[in-house]
């Protein structure tokens, strides 16, 4: 059963609205996105900056509201649950924020940071909350836990802070964990620890994870399926194992080729795309990727490709008429 179902979701941000909140132009951050995440899977979202992946995460966690479409977690519409019972909603889905430095209040200890959600949402007493925080720290291998409970954020390394963030996101036993770039602040030599921790947590708790990252290797390593976003749209959904060798969309192929520069992971010639990502305020007509695509034809310039589905796989490109 799918735990998260996103259907034709739109989020437009007004550009320079007048005093009545009306705007002539909009940033098309998330522009008709659909996909579903099965219970217990790690689902990845990749794309370059400005493609809408963080906006998508914020919509799913309910930090901002979508304009149109539907996001359902365990069959319940996010906008509804959020309105009717926000506390229950927060227990359903939690987020691991991107920046392990900004996410902390520098004046509060780790104990404060970890017990807050337990006191506010978990209905625990102070003592229970502290012992629960203790367990959580052990779960993310920050031991001795008593030592870490009394530390301030600046006394921890970035990797340790990232563990605390994961512990906090898990504290209410959510069904869905949204992790936005959980390792992008870490050095390569320590990144593996957090990757392994996420794997371990996922396996033990059978939790569903939506992992957002610009780092293709991390997404490949952790996820079962991956959605590729470009300018607010999902252009391809594929099995992670196919990412480096069997992607279909020309954008995915170019992204893979550029990302693994030097390591020669992808096959064939290096693909160097022309130009830059166009503005999401006035996205190109037809297929949004056509100005940079070397396969673009007249139809790509005029007509937006309809996504083709088959077996959990999706591609939105005129090059393909069937999967």
């Amino acid at each position: 059963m799918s735990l998260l179902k996103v259907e034709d979701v739109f989020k437009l941000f007004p550009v320079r609205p007048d005093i009545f909140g009306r705007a002539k132009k909009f940033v098309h951050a998330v522009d008709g996105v659909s996909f579903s995440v099965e219970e217990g899977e790690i689902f990845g979202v990749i794309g370059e900056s400005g493609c809408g992946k963080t906006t998508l995460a914020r919509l799913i966690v309910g930090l901002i509201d979508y304009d149109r479409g539907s996001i359902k977690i365990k069959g319940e519409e996010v906008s509804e649950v959020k309105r009717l019972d926000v506390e229950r909603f927060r227990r359903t889905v939690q987020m691991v924020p991107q920046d392990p430095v900004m996410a902390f209040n520098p004046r509060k200890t780790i104990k404060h940071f970890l017990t807050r959600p337990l006191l506010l949402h978990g209905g625990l007493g102070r003592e229970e909350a502290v012992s629960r925080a203790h367990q959580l720290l052990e779960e993310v291998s920050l031991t001795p836990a008593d030592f870490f409970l009394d530390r301030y954020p600046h006394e921890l390394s970035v990797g340790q802070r990232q563990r605390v963030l994961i512990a906090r996101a898990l504290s209410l036993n959510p069904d869905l964990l949204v992790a936005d770039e959980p390792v992008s602040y870490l050095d390569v030599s320590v990144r593996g620890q957090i990757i392994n921790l996420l794997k371990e947590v996922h396996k033990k708790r059978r939790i569903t994870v939506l992992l957002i990252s610009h780092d293709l290797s991390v997404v490949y390593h952790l996820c079962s399926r991956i959605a590729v976003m470009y300018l607010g749209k999902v252009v391809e959904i594929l099995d992670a194992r196919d990412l480096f060798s069997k992607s279909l969309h020309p954008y995915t192929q170019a992204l893979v080729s550029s990302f693994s520069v030097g390591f020669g992971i992808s096959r064939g010639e290096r693909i160097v795309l022309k130009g830059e990502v166009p503005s999401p305020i006035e996205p190109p007509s037809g297929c949004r990727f056509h100005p940079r695509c070397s396969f673009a034809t007249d139809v790509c310039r005029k007509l937006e490709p309809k996504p083709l589905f088959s077996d959990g796989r999706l591609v939105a490109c005129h090059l393909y008429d069937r999967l």
Partner: protein
Amino acid sequence: MNDAVLRVEGLSTYYYTDKGVVRAVDGVDLVVGENEVVGVVGESGCGKSTLAASVMRLLQPPAKIVKGSIFFRNVNLLELPEEEMRKIRGKKISMIFQNPASYLNPLLTVEEQMVESMTLHLRISKQEAASRAVNILEKLGISAPDTVIKYYPHQLSGGMKQRVMIGMAISCNPELVLADEPTTALDPTIQVQILEQLLELRKNLGLSMVVITHDLGVAKAICDKIYVMYAGKIVEEGKVGDVFNRPLHPYTYGLLESALSVYEKDRPAKFIDGAPPKLVEEIKGCYFANRCFNKVDRCLIEYPHPSFKNGRKVYCWNPVGD
């Protein structure tokens, strides 16, 4: 080794802070040959940016160069008066900075910023400099350069800003370019464009380059020779192919494993346990010993002497694969 463009010998740059002396760069030797692209690879805090700033003599207190020499074409930059150094900085040696957004002046147009160094160093008129700037931007793949040149930095995308930075760096025909994380702030599809551009410049202008990066893939893609830096010291150097195919230092080995293991799905991701030492403390023995899987007793007592092997150099008592 007289044909070296840049020769850094025993360079030490320390930061004199309240908490003690931070030995950010600690006895570094580095050679850049004619038309060579040299990579300095290391993780955050290893001293690689301080190394670049030392070569440019752009350090501010509490940082200070305490030892060593930096020869550029056999002239020791550290002995030059500031006035002479200004004639070299930006002309013969120029720098591309990590984050173009914070190094471009938001109040000046691209033209004003590009023209300044050319009028100063090449002694040409503003008009001449402006037309040169348009030319350079065009070569760097900016379409409609005569429009772009009138723009302010906020009107440019990240990739364009980096192109303008590169344009400024090459505008006075430098012999050596130091690029500090030139593509880190960029998305992968733009990163590839900029890397190709740098390689082209090297070919067309006969430039020598030092590329400072934490990204092993970037280093492998564009460098001829690399230096691996850890805790203020060079731990290994050699031709790119050698170092990547057969790393000798356990740190290099671990770093490569950490990066590459993530490309495999069915095994745990690799990492190097522990954290780099604090550079204010006195360290006995090898700086990497506390995290090393290959250490021997001697590592804890004495800092390794370099050993040489087929044009490679490694600072390790017990290299990988020996």
